[in-house]
């Protein structure tokens, strides 16, 4: 018999999976965003070989479905005798994807800083590193923050994909619960509620931050 209490029971059983999902997302963002900043800077660098290598990494990270990246690390690497755990494989795949999408966001935000700003910084005698740190980066950050937060929400949603490599996140827990109770519909709707409870408020937050940061742009 399906009662609201049973349903909320399902939601509770999925919460440990939510912790895993948040860990996966958090670590991937912590690794992926700095990588994206490095990639964005290198893409505008002078060394041609470096530019091509970075561009290839970015395009692979964005062009290949994350599901396939997950399989490449988890099912593919054992072919060359590297056997990562499900969590490690997931971190690698998600970091790569985050770095790929993040690079595009950061690059376009760096480009949106007006040329005059750089010229003025040069004219007042700032060193190149200081020009980047004190003039370009703060202005670019204001533009990049909302889309980077949006990317974080997308990555959190995508953490559901780690289900396919047996990582016990929300979907894996839901599937297990489904096979145990045969109440697939309520169980998967409970999973949907868990995701929505994070993403819908988070999206609203991003919108309001976007509005505030955009005020002086």
């Amino acid at each position, binding site marked *: 018999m399906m009662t609201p209490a049973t349903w909320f029971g399902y939601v509770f059983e999925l919460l440990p999976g939510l912790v895993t999902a948040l860990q996966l997302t958090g670590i991937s963002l912590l690794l992926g965003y700095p990588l994206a900043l490095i990639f964005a800077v290198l893409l505008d660098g002078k060394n041609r070989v470096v530019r091509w290598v970075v561009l290839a990494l970015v*395009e*692979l990270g964005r*062009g*290949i*479905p*994350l*599901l*396939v*990246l997950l*399989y*490449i690390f988890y*099912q*593919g*690497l*054992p*072919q*060359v005798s590297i056997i990562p755990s499900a969590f490690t494989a997931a971190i690698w795949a998600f970091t790569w994807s985050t770095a790929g999408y993040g690079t595009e966001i950061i690059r376009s935000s760096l480009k949106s800083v007006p040329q005059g700003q750089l010229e003025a910084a040069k004219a007042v005698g700032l060193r190149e590193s200081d020009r980047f740190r004190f003039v370009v980066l703060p202005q670019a950050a204001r533009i990049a923050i909302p889309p980077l937060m949006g990317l974080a929400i997308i990555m959190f*949603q*995508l*953490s*559901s*994909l780690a*289900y*396919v490599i047996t990582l016990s996140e929300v*979907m894996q827990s*839901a*599937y297990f619960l*489904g096979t145990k109770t*045969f*109440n*697939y*519909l309520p169980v*998967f*709707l409970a*999973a*949907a509620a868990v*995701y*929505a409870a994070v*993403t*819908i408020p988070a*999206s609203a937050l991003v919108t309001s931050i976007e509005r505030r940061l955009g005020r002086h742009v």
Partner: protein
Amino acid sequence: MFLYILQGLVWTVIITVGGFTFGAVVGVGVAAARVATSRIVRIIARVWVDVIRGVPPLVWLFVVFFGLAEVGLRLTAFQAAILTFSLIASAYLGEIYRGGLAALGKGQVEAAHSLGLGRFDILARIVSPQVLRTVSPSMVTYGIGLMKDSALASTIGVVEMTFRANQVTQNTGQGLTAFAIVGAIYLAMSIPLGVWARRVDNRMREKYVVA
């Protein structure tokens, strides 16, 4: 192995095109509901869009495939994939249309009114062509994303590329080769599409943006 995996491309294309087409049609309704005069309709549409976009596609796929079967609606994996991606696409494309509508100046509709055009003519000859022009680059970008999402259909047993690569891995142990092939096929489709979208976008900007 390459040919075996490539055969799955048919399903990838069918699911992507099918989901996109249905989504593009239903999306018109979603966009119309989002800007409806009735407040209740607007709220329902808003909730529909937010809930669909707030939950990962994989979850919807499982709700439709495993969940609906439990209440008596048994769909094949392929039907479930088409239905799920159509619903998801309707929400995203609906929002894209709405953005295009918002970008269209109010004066366009008012001018058409004052020229004595009927509601249908205004929609078909004034609003739609202009909105489609502004939103088409975003639609292509969404289509590329949808194509990548279609890989999820492998999880419920649609024999597309990712599913086949999994079979190959289990039979031969050559997972890296198999999934690298899948990745390469996706890149071979998404990169040219992306370049094309950018070019269309640039052309629109040059031609149609008035100051």
